[in-house]
């Protein structure tokens, strides 16, 4: 059996193991995140949400996904 290559990324501060050729969109889908309710940073740069299907994740990528919550 062929072994699936995995890489480690950091998602919202937590280390996650993902499949090697995962795209940012795959990650969002996996976590059931609605694109219209969030903003995404990849390695401290804001990502254009229209391009998430084109961005391939690399080893040690730092992803931050934020949304609105209650606050003063």
């Amino acid at each position, binding site marked *: 059996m062929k072994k699936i290559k995995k890489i480690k990324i950091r998602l919202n501060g937590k280390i996650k193991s993902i499949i090697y050729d995962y795209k940012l969109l795959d990650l969002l889908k996996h976590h059931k995140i609605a694109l219209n309710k969030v903003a995404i940073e990849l390695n401290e740069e804001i990502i254009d949400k229209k391009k998430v299907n084109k961005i391939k994740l690399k080893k040690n990528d730092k992803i931050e996904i*934020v949304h609105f919550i209650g606050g003063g």
Partner: protein
Amino acid sequence: MVNLKKDNFIIANKKFSSRLIVGTGKYKNMMECAKAIKLSGAEIVTVAVRRVNISNKNKPLLMDYIDPKKITYLPNTAGCFNSKEALRTLRLAREIGGWKLVKLEVLGDKKNLFPDMIETLKSTEVLAKEGFRVMVYCNDDPLMAKRLENSGADAIMPLAAPIGSGLGIQNKINIQIIRKQTKLPLIIDAGLGQASDATIAMELGCDGVLVNTAIAKAKKPFDMAVAFKNAVIAGRQSYNSGRIDKILMGNPSSPSKGII
């Protein structure tokens, strides 16, 4: 009856009829928060930008309870202690769905939560240049308020007292000086404790008030939301009506002529 409909509250070219802005934090749950907002009549609510909870996807979402199409979300930088963090937060907020109207709040001290005005001023300049419409939380200092205005702020939001303190307006003179010097919307932000504090703010000539803790942490948040709604309307009507001059001695209400 006074026609309050003509007395619009305009921020960054947008018209609002309610002069009460409320925060969405510190409520027991989302349902309580949404109901209190409805009762308050507020059309603008402040919201925070935080990480999505990846491990618990069933957590209720703010947007499911408060419709951003009906209520204006005002992303806030609460919890930011320098310009870099505040700018990062608001750029992300804008990216969520085109939010340009934002509230800038850069704190300087974890205990008293007073704003760091140097970092606030720096951030206002950058944000205004990037096309944001910035409502700025600030100290009740007329000189700093002027500087913020010159840096491109869209609203001046001085504190009444420290955030969450419930102390009410501590420096009425400064608020009046700021009112006299600016045509920008002047909104009291932070430190109110009860409905009458909001009335006082409005009677000083402020254009609006922002309240969170005083409603959310009241023993009866729904009743307090209504009380604040009425207090803001009463204060505005009182201000627009032109109060009498203060005099030191008594002045009888009944005519002295014809006394038997």
